[in-house]
């Protein structure tokens, strides 16, 4: 963390003092995300089965599971992009189906694995997209939006990348830019879909530290889909394991990543993935 970042962090509450954050303080009750008996089927195949999940405001939760377990589907259900066949999804206490897209985007920011840009786009222009849910459709960004963009750039440590074409950056830098976009979105809940999957070790740790920091210092609720069990165990105190559409474990790493479960769910020897010590 540089001095500039620390300064930005101190100034952050002012930058985030927009209607969304103010509203979130009042309307987000104990559970930021709440899934009740949610089931989803794609063409006859059940992808989520009777999922119950509560993520409290200010909590940091990692969602684990093998490929095809339904992790990304769960994120899409939470974001309201996929309507479950059964069950209820509440975002900040309200049914997500009853919120319009902008209202969802002011509550929940989603960081994708990667994104493709069709045109040369500068780092600050990508980060600025985070303000779209707050923008007036006709008047465009205002001073408050510009301040939030500048604050997000400093908060995530992108200052040195300002002016660069985002398409020319390394994968790790691009991932940080996407996190910067989500920070500019100033939503009380942050969801990430395998944010470290394409990154080298150093950038993995950097992104995870940033996520932990956003949670602990800024109070952002975090729900992250992760592949790397070791990173998840290190950076998260609550892990949720999804297998074949069901939640099979939910709790602290030592309990959730018990050798027998890792063997059963992921089909690997826990010693190989460095979890033996847990």
């Amino acid at each position: 963390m540089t001095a500039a970042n620390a300064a930005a962090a101190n100034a952050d509450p002012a930058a985030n003092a927009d209607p969304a954050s103010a509203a979130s303080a009042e309307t987000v009750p104990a559970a930021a995300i709440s899934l009740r008996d949610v089931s989803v089927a794609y063409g006859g195949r059940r992808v989520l089965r009777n999922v119950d999940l509560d993520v409290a405001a200010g909590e940091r939760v990692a969602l684990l599971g093998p490929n095809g377990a339904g992790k990304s589907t769960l994120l899409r259900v939470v974001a309201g992009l996929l309507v479950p066949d059964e069950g209820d999804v509440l975002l900040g206490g309200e049914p997500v189906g009853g919120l319009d897209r902008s209202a969802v985007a002011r509550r929940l920011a989603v960081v994708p694995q990667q994104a493709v840009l069709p045109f040369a786009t500068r780092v600050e222009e990508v980060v600025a997209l985070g303000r779209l849910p707050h923008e007036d459709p006709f008047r465009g960004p205002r001073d408050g939006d510009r301040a939030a963009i500048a604050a997000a750039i400093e908060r995530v440590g992108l200052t040195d990348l300002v002016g660069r074409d985002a398409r020319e950056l390394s994968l790790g830098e691009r991932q940080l830019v996407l996190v910067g976009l989500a920070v500019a979105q100033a939503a009380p809940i942050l969801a990430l879909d395998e944010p470290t999957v394409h990154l080298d070790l150093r950038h993995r740790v950097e992104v995870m530290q940033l996520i932990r920091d956003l949670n602990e210092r800024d109070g952002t609720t975090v729900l992250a889909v992760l592949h790397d069990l070791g990173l998840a165990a290190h950076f998260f105190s609550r892990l949720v394991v999804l297998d074949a559409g069901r939640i099979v474990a939910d709790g602290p790493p030592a309990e959730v990543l018990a050798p027998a479960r890792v063997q059963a769910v992921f089909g690997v020897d826990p010693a190989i993935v460095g979890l033996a010590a847990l």
Partner: protein
Amino acid sequence: MATRDQALAVPKVHAGRFEALRRRPVALAVLGLGLVAVSLVAGIAAGSVAVPPEDTIAILGRRLLGLDLPVTWTPAAETIVVDLRLPRVLTAMLVGIGLSVAGATFQGLLRNPLADPYVLGTASGAGLGAAIAVLIPVRIAIFDFGLLHAFAFVGALLAVGVVYRLSRVGGLAPLTSLLLTGYAVGSLLAAGLAMAMYLSGAGLRQIFGYLLGGFDAATWPSLVAAAPLVIGGFIVVLARARVLNGFLLGEEAAAHLGIDVPRQRLILLAAGSLVTAACVAVSGLIGFVGLVIPHVVRLLVGPNARAVLPLSAIYGAALLAAADLLARLVGEIPIGVVTAVVGAPFFLFLLRRTRTGYEL
């Protein structure tokens, strides 16, 4: 706060030649409007009968703005300016606005730098419609807006409608499906057009003239018929600049940024198609403007649709008015030849400039 502004305003790297312009879209707009004014006066003054620029400006001031200016010109000059050249230059500008805005819309919506206004089958649909109008032995004209224009308009819209309906069948992602369906339907319609031209006999020249595009048939009534569609579509798209910005990172990301993707996609498609159909109905097929102008603007000001859309409209208007003037001065060559001669080399330059792929 000062340090934050500096962080945004003073990029440490890549401060290229165009840096000053990038942060001054308003200055670019003023420059563009100046070019529009110059090409308006030049386009009206020049031609087989030259009208001095000062007379041109005075006639325009008298007739359009109602200024009480002394008459120093012949009635014939006034007729040439007001009844012949003014509608022609204004039509060129209108079509320049329409094609550039439609091109920017389709490129942003389909997230494809190679998209142009004709990408979803509009061109072949309009061409086939025009050819059918030439082939059927009935001649009707309402307010100068002949059967050919009407059929071209309907053909363009029908083609997009068919592409949109067909693209919704099957399991492909909506955008990929739209592009591929547009290509397939376009090819089919082009085959129909080739067949119609083969069968057309004496009508071939008329069909060919339409396909090459141009403004020699422009009149006040056709301008008045097309203008509301083009300007209305432009306003609809401009009001959705925020949506087009959201599409930059893809449809899923746009949804996460608060955009109702299916609804906005349909509205933008409809507006872009209507604008394109109105343009091809009055002017035939004019290439490269809709492809190149939005790219030039993006090179100058970046991808923000709030700047790209109005600047594309302004520079599209100036370019087509200037290209039409050039085409007339060279001896009534088809304007499509002029835009291609200017546009193709530029586009090659652009392709060479584009780096490895489009990934973020």
